């Protein structure tokens, strides 16, 4: 908006609004926002104070007023992302506000020096809520169907995307960090570990790994050779099997044996 007033977290805005009711603040915020949209001189003091009360003071009435005031703008951001997101716009609007509320604790409100930065952060929340959902969808493509879990969207680490620490399903049984450390112990050679990291953490095909690291893997066949070698080692590792349960029953009977002369 036209003015950018610096207000420290926890302090009332320079214009003393400490006795102003939420209703009056909300009305003034709406009025000034309209002026701003018409290109007339306006102040963002009232709107910023609403945010401050909502976030810093955790005032639920102020938060409801914030959501009411900015729902339309957040909806516009959501609709700009198109596709399935726009088709379920209300859900994503709520996710954006939830994310903002969760991420901006009272002690973090000081990072905003005025309304423009608050709104930019809210805009960022509208985008990252969708990005995280895309991550989840991509991660679940790697899981076999019998490992998929019900309930809230999960990250690859089994954490609920928005708030909470829900741990469910197969991923509940392992710590990814522990799994990676076990892999590091089993695969100490960096060239081999890079293939694993690129394959499973970055989701790259061998041809992409070769393209990005030609100095390590001069041909795609080199990547396949390393990858096969490492996978065979991991499937026999008790530590990896225990952590990730990655090896199905009966694998021991399916092993490979050296070919004659090979």
């Amino acid at each position, binding site marked *: 908006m*036209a003015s950018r007033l610096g207000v420290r977290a926890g302090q009332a805005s320079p214009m003393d609004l400490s006795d102003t009711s939420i209703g009056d603040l909300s009305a003034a915020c709406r009025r000034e926002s309209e002026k701003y*949209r*018409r*290109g007339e001189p306006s102040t963002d003091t009232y709107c910023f104070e609403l945010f401050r009360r909502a976030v810093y003071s955790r005032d639920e009435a102020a938060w409801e007023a914030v959501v009411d005031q900015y729902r339309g*703008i957040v909806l*516009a*951001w959501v609709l700009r992302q198109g596709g399935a997101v726009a088709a379920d716009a209300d859900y994503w609007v709520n996710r954006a506000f939830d994310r903002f509320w969760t*991420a901006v604790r009272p002690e973090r409100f000081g*990072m905003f020096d005025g309304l423009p930065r608050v*709104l*930019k952060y809210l*805009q*960022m929340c509208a*985008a*990252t*809520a969708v*990005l995280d959902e895309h991550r989840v969808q991509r*991660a*679940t493509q*790697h*899981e*076999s169907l019998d*490992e998929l879990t019900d309930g809230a969207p999960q990250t*690859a*680490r089994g954490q609920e995307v928005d708030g909470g620490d829900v741990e469910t399903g*197969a991923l509940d049984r*392992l710590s*990814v960090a522990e*799994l*990676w450390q076990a892999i590091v112990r089993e695969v100490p050679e960096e060239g081999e570990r890079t293939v*694993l990291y690129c*394959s*499973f*953490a*970055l*989701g790259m095909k*061998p*041809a992409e790994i070769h393209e990005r690291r030609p100095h390590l893997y001069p041909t*795609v*066949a080199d990547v*396949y*050779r390393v990858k*096969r070698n490492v*996978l*065979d080692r*991991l*499937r026999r590792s008790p530590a990896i099997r225990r952590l*990730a*349960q*990655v*090896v*199905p029953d009966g*694998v021991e009977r*399916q*092993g*490979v*044996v*050296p*070919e004659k002369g*090979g």
Partner: protein
Amino acid sequence: MTNIGCTRPGAVTPEAILAYVDGDASPDVAQHLRTCPACASEAQVYSRLQGRLGGALYRFDCPPAQALGEYELGLTSPEGRSGVARHVLDCPHCMAELLSLRTFLADDMALAPAPRGGPVEGLRRVVATLFVPAPGAGAAALRGGTDGEGATYRVEDLTITLGPGPPGPRGRASLMGLIVREDHDLEVSAGSTAHLLSATGEPVTAAIDELGSFAFDDIAPGNYGLELHLPGLIVAVEDVSVGR
């Protein structure tokens, strides 16, 4: 190596079976796997193993999207910034997300006031003032309010450094500039431009790139005004002397 129980030992290598799982195998390998239960079973084992490793490890060390967003907004600590930057350089997924965030956040349409009359009406206009002479800009081509030096101007959280560029032919001059925003990256858009205004001639326009730099080449020595058109903001720098 070959699989125990393979119907045609030596027909396919374990690497070829892995390539089949990755969708890269030749038709010969696919044909063999359709007829060899042992190799088909081996492919299934690789498939499950890769599926589970991928399900557990996929992007396990990527910063959350929210962290990328805070990085883009300049809300990350210096240590955190270097960590995110290092990761993004190596991770094509985070790089793509960061670029999409940058594009999304650069668009202020939902927050912008309705246009009134012209493209710049309703934008905030501020005047930058001389801060300190820029060190090392020794040429006397540009004064910027001081004699014989390049100069630095400041307004709000913006720092604008102006300095002489390479001299042009026949006594012509050039001017180079860099805009830096304190604490976080400068927001520029495709329409961000710098305008050199003189009392006697047509204004000269140069694009501001994503790093905040711009340049005017082959300009007549003289006194100019400079306007920087940034998203939502016009920054004016007065009395810029070039080539004198």
